[in-house]
């Protein structure tokens, strides 16, 4: 069983040797690592700039315009007048009465008949 001190020393030595190994990397490898880092940083810059490209702004602007127009139409246009089928009180009576519809279609005839009967009654009494 190794003591904690021995294990600590072992790990320190291992870490030291590994660190030495990366200090002496081949020059071409160092260059390729640097290139990889630069490429990664470029992609980060593109990602950060991505929001400011014109196409993105055009899309955002277009969407905002559509929303604004829709809201304007909804709030500012006068509400359409309610078209009530019964314009006059007589029409309302027709709608609400229980009479058969044929009666109203021949209403002129019945009105004429009523005036005739009235005149006949007046003639008899006079």
């Amino acid at each position, binding site marked *: 069983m190794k003591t904690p001190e021995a294990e600590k020393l*072992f790990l320190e030595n*291992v870490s030291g040797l590994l660190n*030495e*190994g990366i200090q002496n990397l081949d020059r071409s490898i160092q260059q390729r690592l640097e290139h990889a880092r630069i*490429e*990664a*940083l470029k992609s980060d810059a593109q990602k950060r700039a991505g929001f400011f490209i014109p196409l993105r702004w055009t899309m955002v602007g277009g969407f905002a315009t559509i929303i604004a127009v829709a809201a304007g139409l909804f709030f500012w246009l006068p509400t359409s007048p309610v078209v009530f089928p019964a314009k006059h009180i007589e029409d309302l009576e027709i709608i609400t009465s229980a009479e058969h519809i044929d009666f109203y279609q021949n209403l002129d005839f019945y009105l004429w008949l009523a005036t005739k009967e009235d005149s006949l009654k007046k003639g008899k009494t006079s």
Partner: protein
Amino acid sequence: MGSGPNSKEALSRFLADIERRAFKMARFASGNADEALDLVQDGMMEFVKRYSDQPQEKWKALFYRVLHSRIIDWHRRSFVRRRVLTWLGRGDAEEDADDRLLNLPDPASPNPYDQAVHQEERMALEKAIRALPLRQRQAFLLRAWEGMNVAQAAFAMGCAEGSVKTHYSRAIHALRGMLEDVRI
């Protein structure tokens, strides 16, 4: 955005600080420098794309999570490729073909003396680390080299903390066994 908390400079410093260790880890996993460089580059790109807006204290764990995910994907692909090549009757002779070249000391190195002294131990250590199973190697490198705690390593590896402890303990035990004859 240059002065923001996650500025380009901070991201550049983070990647520069981490890239060599990341390369070495990918190198241990793939056994090939070119594959390792591709893995690191892909990992950097994906990390930047997905996580550069995250708080900086989370970057290390997030980066290694991405990198280890890439390494596992690479292992799956290479396993299938090896099976196909074996089935076709072609071995994997090109695997590790560049190991000896990469392990030679760099004459332009600023520390040739240190290299000469430690090269044998370092090569033995790297060989032993490479011989570890993937998950043990990941747990060991993240904990012992990258200095992550158990929770961070578990997040980076995408597993439970208990698994990290088990893999780490087994890795140390295995390394001690393999390096018994080496003065480390």
